[in-house]
């Protein structure tokens, strides 16, 4: 009994040693970004929302920027500038400047993956230009930059952007035969846009896919339920919305080098063909032709993209990973040597299910 009482008392008194600040006494970092200055120095910026009075409900953001020589120092220096202890638990977006990304962000990944307070569902992004300017920028939306940026990325993931967050990136980063990709962001006057996808090899950026091709990567990676693409046909521009897609990979190893067969089946409907001036109802053959045109478009684009990956020795689709999962005796070194010679055959099966309500 005495022992029990003593241990409970110990717990109670030991709890007093804990230094606690409740939520309003903390600076809650929602967005952080890093810029490259030179070999030794980086510049870090954090965005902290300042919640106003209830009646006003205006959202202001406090931005702190410091230049440091290492990441460890960054933490200390940024605390020097803040009146409240920084809390990283609600971090939502983490940005890197393109210069920094092409030089590698290994160090940052290590910190992000080790901190238990940071969620795995935060978004990472690569900034074309200055991160600090993007974070400090004033945007028309009445919300913080962090929330605005998060909204942009989330909305794009529903559309043409492949799924991305810290978890997916770290998975790709640590997996064999798989490389990561991150949204490529750009500040345009008073708004931000997703201007493409930056492709990584290990932790360094090697290529950027332009915005109009992001759907191709999404098709290769996952099920698309709401993607849209516009192509140029001989009659003019035609827009299509993909409502359902499915991708399957087949590996065949006949000789030394494995061969991949990618089968993409998708359904979609035409939502824009005004320019062509063709009355779709009366022209079923035209639709058949459109199906073919779109199929060849996707097929050539996908093959082109895979070629680009091969050239950069990166593998965001995860061909190596598929190969490793399905074949015995996977040798990473051998695979890496073979990768540029691997044959990938893309086969697109597209079905146009609707043409909208045309008059």
């Amino acid at each position: 009994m005495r022992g029990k009482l003593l241990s409970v008392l110990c717990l109670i008194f030991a709890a007093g040693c804990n230094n606690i600040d409740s939520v309003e006494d903390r600076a809650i970092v929602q967005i952080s970004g890093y810029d490259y200055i030179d070999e030794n120095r980086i510049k870090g910026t954090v965005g902290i929302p300042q919640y106003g009075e209830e009646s006003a409900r205006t959202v202001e953001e406090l931005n702190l920027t410091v230049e440091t020589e290492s990441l460890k120092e960054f933490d200390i220096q940024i605390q020097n500038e803040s009146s409240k202890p920084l809390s990283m638990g609600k971090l939502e977006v983490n940005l890197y400047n393109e210069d920094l990304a092409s030089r590698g962000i290994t160090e940052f990944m290590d910190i992000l993956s080790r901190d238990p307070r940071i969620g795995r569902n935060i978004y990472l992004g690569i900034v074309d230009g200055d991160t600090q300017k993007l974070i400090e920028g004033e945007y028309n939306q009445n919300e913080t930059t962090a929330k605005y940026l998060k909204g942009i990325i989330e909305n794009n993931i529903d559309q043409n952007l492949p799924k991305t967050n810290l978890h997916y990136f770290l998975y790709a980063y640590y997996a064999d035969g798989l490389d990561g990709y991150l949204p490529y962001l750009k500040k345009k006057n008073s708004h931000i846009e997703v201007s493409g996808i930056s492709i990584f090899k290990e932790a360094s950026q090697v290529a950027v896919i332009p915005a109009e091709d992001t759907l191709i990567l999404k098709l290769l990676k996952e099920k698309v339920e709401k993607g849209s693409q516009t192509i140029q046909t001989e009659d003019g521009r035609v827009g299509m919305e993909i409502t359902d897609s499915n991708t399957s990979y087949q590996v065949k190893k006949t000789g030394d080098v494995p061969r991949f067969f990618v089968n993409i089946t998708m359904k979609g409907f035409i939502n824009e063909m005004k320019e062509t001036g063709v009355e779709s109802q009366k022209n079923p053959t035209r639709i058949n032709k459109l199906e073919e045109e779109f199929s060849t478009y996707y097929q050539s684009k996908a093959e082109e993209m895979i070629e680009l990956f091969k050239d950069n020795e990166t593998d965001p689709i995860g061909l190596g990973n598929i190969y490793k999962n399905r074949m015995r005796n996977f040798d990473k070194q051998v695979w890496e040597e073979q990768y540029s010679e691997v044959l990938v055959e893309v086969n697109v099966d597209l079905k146009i299910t609707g043409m909208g309500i045309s008059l």
Partner: protein
Amino acid sequence: MWRPKKKEQEKNIDRFQSLSSEQTVQTLFDTLEHSNDFKRYKVGASGWVISYVSTMCDDKIINDTLLPVLKQHELQSLEDMKDKLPVDNIRVTEDTKKIEENVMTGYIIVQEKSADQKVLCVPASKYEGRKVSIPEVEFSVVGPKEAFVESIDTNMSLMRKRLPISQLTFRELKMGSITQTRVGVVYIDGIADEDNIQTVFQRLKNIDYDQIIDSSFISQMISDNSTSPFPQLLDTERPDRVVEVLVEGKIAIVVDGSPHVLTCPTTIVEFFSASDDYFLPWHLATAFRLIRLFAVFFSVLSTPLYVAILTYHHEMIPEELMSTIVASRADIPFPPILEVIILELTIELLREAGARLPTKIGQTIGIVGGIVIGTAAVDAGLTSNVLLIIVALAALASFTTPVYQIGNTIRLIRFPFLIGAQMWGLVGVAMVMMFYIGHLIKLTSIGRPFFAPLYPLRFRDLRDAFIRLPFSKQSERPLQTRPETSRRFNKEHVSERRDIDE
């Protein structure tokens, strides 16, 4: 210092006991004559002496029945009178103890001569009591609206009229060395487990106390763990509820002077089942039961979670709520824990005040407290808006429990959770929760597990625990009571197809 005092006390008790034990009829009446409502006189010429406590006796019986017989007839002896008097349950006795008991419960004592030890006891008791009224604590919209009253006989008749079978057994005990309270143990012979009955009698007989004012005295005295905040006997004011559990094989304890009847063995889930649950279709009843269960958890855990999250786990606050919470917390000078304790105490004060005041003023207090103090506290910057809503909802949720006793428990058990939340965050909440679950697992109600059907897991009893399956599925009595006969009805008979009316 207190040793001699104790001896003195013992002496006092001895004096009281000797006063009541070594008596003759004469000394008994001498003692009684100190009271002004004790009447003793000779009747007419025949010389019969009658003595009674006038406040306990019915004038009608004295004037219309007893006195005419005494005055008109030429009666030879007490036995003769016993045959002639048109009153039942008359006895002739010489036992002073019996006589004392009788005279104090409203019997009229008739003697041939005033010094005689042999007397005739004529029952003429008159009880002033409440009429059977609608239940106030356990109100239900549908179903029977009778509630127990303070008289044990009325209460028994309320039960007997619902269970007109000879097996319904009522065994009476006298308890409380001074109050001599009548305590009845009621069960259905052949259904109730013999061991349970034994346990109840054993515990009741072990009680040595001078006064038993209410059934809650008994409840506290015979409970397995009297230090537990959880009530281990269910008390109810609804006869229909008692009959329901009697049929399940439980045992009821009726106490004279208490409008609440105790039933045992009970389980924690029984405290969250209302009698309404059986009057509604089973799916609706199930939904409402689950809502009630959720309300209990919400009531206990909402403020501790508020404290834990705001102090330790900011990550858990959704982005959309962040600005609301931070903005409302910004001007509060206290940390969350103090804020919560202030508001919880305010609510507790309001409840206590409301419970002690007459109904009409009580309502005013509720409004004054709820609206005026609440908004004033927020305006003054003592508490935040968000917390006010949480605390008010938690208080509201704690009122949803159908049994009043467990409501009190719920009121209290959130405070350890609050302390845990402040000291170790969610870990603390989990620790306190583990402590409570451990406690509940160990707890028993007259020797039967209190946390059943969860622990030990009794799958059959789950049919009427968190959910209530239709009556057709309840073909067996719950395992918890270990009934002597467990079958309620023939299951096959229910599943027969009756698609043709014969």
